[in-house]
């Protein structure tokens, strides 16, 4: 028993690492995944390096079936095009592949989200004179509505998890039930949000994201304090399985090789 305890205490991780590991676990089997840059890309590459080697990664730069062994700093990095099964034009990736419904999972980051999984990546404050101008929509508005389902990953803070978005860049779930029914013909929208504190899943009954799993060492109070609305805590609340030695080793291996590849 002592030996096991020693191994466990040796496994320490940062809050960013557990977020990436838990997000990666959402990708399984032979899913075809449309990958956003940053945290989603890191998690998707980790999934392929560990439990899900047969996941197909698609990047909006036109790279289909990319097999990066390091974290590309942008979605247009040469490691993506050189390892891809096919490289197509940007109009083609959005028309033939995304819009036509060939993507199982969209994997997105966000600056702000609300309880329905709506995303703001446009502006904080007034649109015409923003306090912070963000990059804008990119591929997200059509990714959220065209993929089979969507995984969102971002760091948990009261600034990011807001009651009301300053700008709805991409729709998670429509307030209007008829619109929500129409969208379901093309995709089921955001189903899970993975943060550095917890996992939230969309519940059709409440039509909100509910906290279903807390990462080790995180309390319900911690999550409530960092969420800008009275978030529902699931009756079946679980503790997130901690990162395994293999997951951490793989994550650190390609994070390090990215830093060295500069």
């Amino acid at each position, binding site marked *: 028993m002592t030996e096991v305890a020693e191994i466990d205490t040796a496994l320490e991780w940062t809050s960013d690492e557990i977020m990436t590991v838990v997000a990666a676990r959402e990708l399984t089997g032979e899913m075809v995944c449309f990958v956003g*840059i*940053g945290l989603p890309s890191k998690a998707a590459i980790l999934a392929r390096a560990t439990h899900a080697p047969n996941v197909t990664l698609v990047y*909006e*730069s*036109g*790279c289909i079936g990319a097999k990066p062994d390091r974290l*590309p*700093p*942008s*979605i*247009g*990095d*040469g490691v*993506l*095009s*050189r390892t891809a099964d*096919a*490289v*197509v*034009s*940007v*109009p083609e990736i*959005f*028309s033939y592949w*995304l*819009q036509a419904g060939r993507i199982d999972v969209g994997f997105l980051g966000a600056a702000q989200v609300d309880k329905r999984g709506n995303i703001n990546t*446009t502006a904080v404050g007034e*649109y015409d*004179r*923003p*306090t*912070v*101008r963000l*990059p*804008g*929509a*990119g*591929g*997200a*508005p*059509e990714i959220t*509505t*065209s993929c089979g389902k969507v995984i969102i990953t971002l760091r948990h803070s009261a600034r990011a998890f807001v009651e009301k978005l300053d*700008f*709805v*860049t*991409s*729709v998670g779930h*429509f307030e209007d039930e008829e*619109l929500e029914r129409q*969208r379901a013909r*093309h995709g089921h929208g955001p189903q899970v949000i993975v943060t550095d504190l917890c996992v939230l899943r969309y519940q059709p009954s409440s039509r909100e994201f509910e906290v279903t799993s807390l990462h080790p060492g995180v309390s319900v109070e911690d999550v409530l304090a960092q969420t800008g609305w009275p978030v529902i805590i699931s009756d079946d609340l679980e503790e997130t399985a901690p990162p395994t030695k293999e997951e951490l080793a793989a994550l650190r291996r390609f994070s390090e090789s990215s830093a060295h590849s*500069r």
Partner: protein
Amino acid sequence: MNARPLTLSDAVAEFVHDGDTVALEGFTHLIPFAAGHEIIRQGRRDLTLVRMTPDIIYDQLIGMGCVSKLIFSWAGNPGAGSLHRFRDAVENGYPHPLEIEEHSHAGMAVRYQASASGLPFGVLRGYAGTDLSQLSPTIRWITCPFTGEELAAVPALSIDVSVICAQQADRRGNVMMWGITGVQKEAVLSAKHSVVLVEEIVDDFTPHVNAVVLPSWTIDAVSVVPSGSYPSYSEDYSERANDFYAQWEGISRDRVAFHAWMTNHVLETKDHAAFMESLTAIGVTT
């Protein structure tokens, strides 16, 4: 008429005018930085810039006061941070107010396709429920005459000149690019005029997987500019200068530091070769 060989300086002087709508396209790869610098050197004003992914070169053009309007879908410094000159223009009106017309990537791609196809507008299943569709007069709704489905309509882009990078041109002025080719074919076919920067001229093209070839008669001018995409990259010729993108965060955050950098490396260098030498001189690996 086939493409003419021109120096980049002559090509910009002939094809980019004050008040024009200009697309310097490239999707991380093959971004025509050298052309943006030349536009800044020649002091163009009141430009409407078009690009799906405005990055550092658009940040520079905006910060130097060349731009009155930006049509785009994602403005950032990928993997590194914000475009601070773009943000300063939108948030504070510095150096002057910047009009913006923004779309999603899918919407911008369809606008290019419509324009390249000679159609007045394009159609996509997009924008439903977004605030973009509420505020933009360039997003409207139409009903499919066959199925009754409601779809988004976006107008074709109207571009005076597109500038892109390709790896190679042949002796007749046909150009070939490979790797990530983005929306550059559509950008050229959407524009009244086009200028292509190439790494080199070759006698004959060697076939490449996923290559795109644009015939000479679709292009106005070809300029040989080695490493003209720096700090972006040209597959099989150069690597992306990721360090430069990271350093831009510090240079561009401060108005004074930005102007000093632009003066030293762009305004006071005569061409792209001199620009690259000016970076080598301060220890930047190019």
